């Protein structure tokens, strides 16, 4: 009989791990709390650095996992520890006995309305990175005028590197996402003036620096080094954005038609709840704690419990996929060793 492996989360990490485990001859069971697979990537339009359609990535993974057991709209109700396995009760009444669990629970996006000074949910022209991707996908959003904004801005680090929002960590992907979205907006609306308000630009990945140079040189996007301190609305309903241009040491004020907040990556509160059921430790940054942050990222300190993807911290799509493959291999080694 094939070994059951319970995968919590049907995002790209869970799907990729399931596809690898199928190839290795196991029986992966994916439990997904929402009504669709693909997680956050399914809500995205195109992915850096090659502008790959996100839908392509997700549909490939879904096709590869067609033989896996997948439960949508399902959560973990409770977990019983048996002698050397777990009895897991799902919210749909099914119970699964398995010796191996994979957390692919991912992240949550920071709730941008918590930063009241940026006016998300208060002013009509403030949206988040996710709202903009939704508009790229559907073309429907009342906040974006048909003729395009005359001037717009991107605010980096919303809820990232922010101790007051209890997220001191860098979300890693927003810098490049903002540059990508700025370029996409400029392609759609060549007349628009686009500003990026940043604290530091962290262009660490493959071809990210090329993106940044292209945004400056080919698209004329203006980068201002300073965190936006407050956003207000003038009598015409336009946004007044204030920041310090820390490079010139002078305050700057600009009138915009649209402001996009780069909401950061925070740990998924549901993950913490599920992790609590089996008393998994949480690291100092609020994400799940690996056995070792260099050598054993995909292993938890508890036997038979593994991690893949953004449940252990902010990650890019290729990093998540690589980690999912690595977790599948770790699981295979673990099960082979036990037999």
């Amino acid at each position, binding site marked *: 009989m094939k070994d059951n492996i319970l995968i919590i989360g049907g995002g790209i990490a869970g799907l990729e791990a399931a596809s690898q485990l199928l190839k290795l001859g196991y029986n992966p069971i994916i439990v997904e709390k929402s009504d669709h697979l693909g997680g956050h990537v399914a809500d995205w339009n195109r992915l850096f650095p090659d502008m790959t359609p996100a839908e392509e990535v997700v549909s490939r993974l879904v096709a590869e996992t067609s033989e896996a057991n997948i439960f949508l709209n399902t959560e973990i109700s409770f977990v019983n520890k048996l002698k050397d396995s777990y009895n897991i009760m799902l919210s749909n009444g099914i119970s699964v006995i398995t010796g191996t669990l994979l957390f692919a629970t991912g992240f949550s996006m920071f709730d941008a309305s918590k930063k009241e*000074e940026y006016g998300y949910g208060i002013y009509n022209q403030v949206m988040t990175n996710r709202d903009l991707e939704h508009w790229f996908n559907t073309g429907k959003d009342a906040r974006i005028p048909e003729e395009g904004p005359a001037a717009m801005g991107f605010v980096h680090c919303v809820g990232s590197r922010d101790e007051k*929002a209890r997220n001191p960590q860098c979300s890693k992907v927003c810098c490049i996402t903002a540059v990508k979205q700025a370029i996409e907006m400029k392609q759609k609306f060549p007349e628009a003036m686009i500003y990026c308000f940043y604290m*530091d630009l962290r262009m660490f990945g493959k071809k990210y620096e090329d993106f940044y140079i292209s945004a400056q040189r080919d698209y004329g996007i203006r980068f201002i080094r*300073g965190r936006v301190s407050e956003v207000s609305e003038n009598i015409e309903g336009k946004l007044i954005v204030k920041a*310090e241009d*820390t490079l010139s040491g002078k305050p*700057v004020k600009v009138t915009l038609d649209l402001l996009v907040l780069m909401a950061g990556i925070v740990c998924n509160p549901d993950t913490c709840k599920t992790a609590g059921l089996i008393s998994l430790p949480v690291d100092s940054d609020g994400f799940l704690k690996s056995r070792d942050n260099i050598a054993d990222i995909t292993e938890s300190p508890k036997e038979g419990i593994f991690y893949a993807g953004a449940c252990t911290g902010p990650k890019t799509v290729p990093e998540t996929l690589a980690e999912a493959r690595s977790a599948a291999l770790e699981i295979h080694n673990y099960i082979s060793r036990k037999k």
Partner: protein
Amino acid sequence: MDFGFKISPSSAVNLDNVDLSLYDRLAEVEPDIRKCIACGSCSASCPANRFSGMSVRKAILGLQRGKEKEVAKMLSTCMLCGKCSMVCPRGINTRHLILSICKFYKED
């Protein structure tokens, strides 16, 4: 000898000659001063900034670069309204920090 003109002093910061002992003593009572990431939120929200150039970010940097006199002069224009502490993403109590800087500078 008077040539009728003189060379203005160099504005370069020579880190070899910067004495940070006062800054280090300040950092002992205000450890948060080392947490600043120079984002500029404080200066952007400062009501005195556009009139006098008051900026907590510049004050912290100035102390680290040994420009104590300039910092003291700048801080004299602070109105202690505390708006900067509200916007600081690092949660630095900037108002308290400004008072401490003033106190330390007076002691010397």
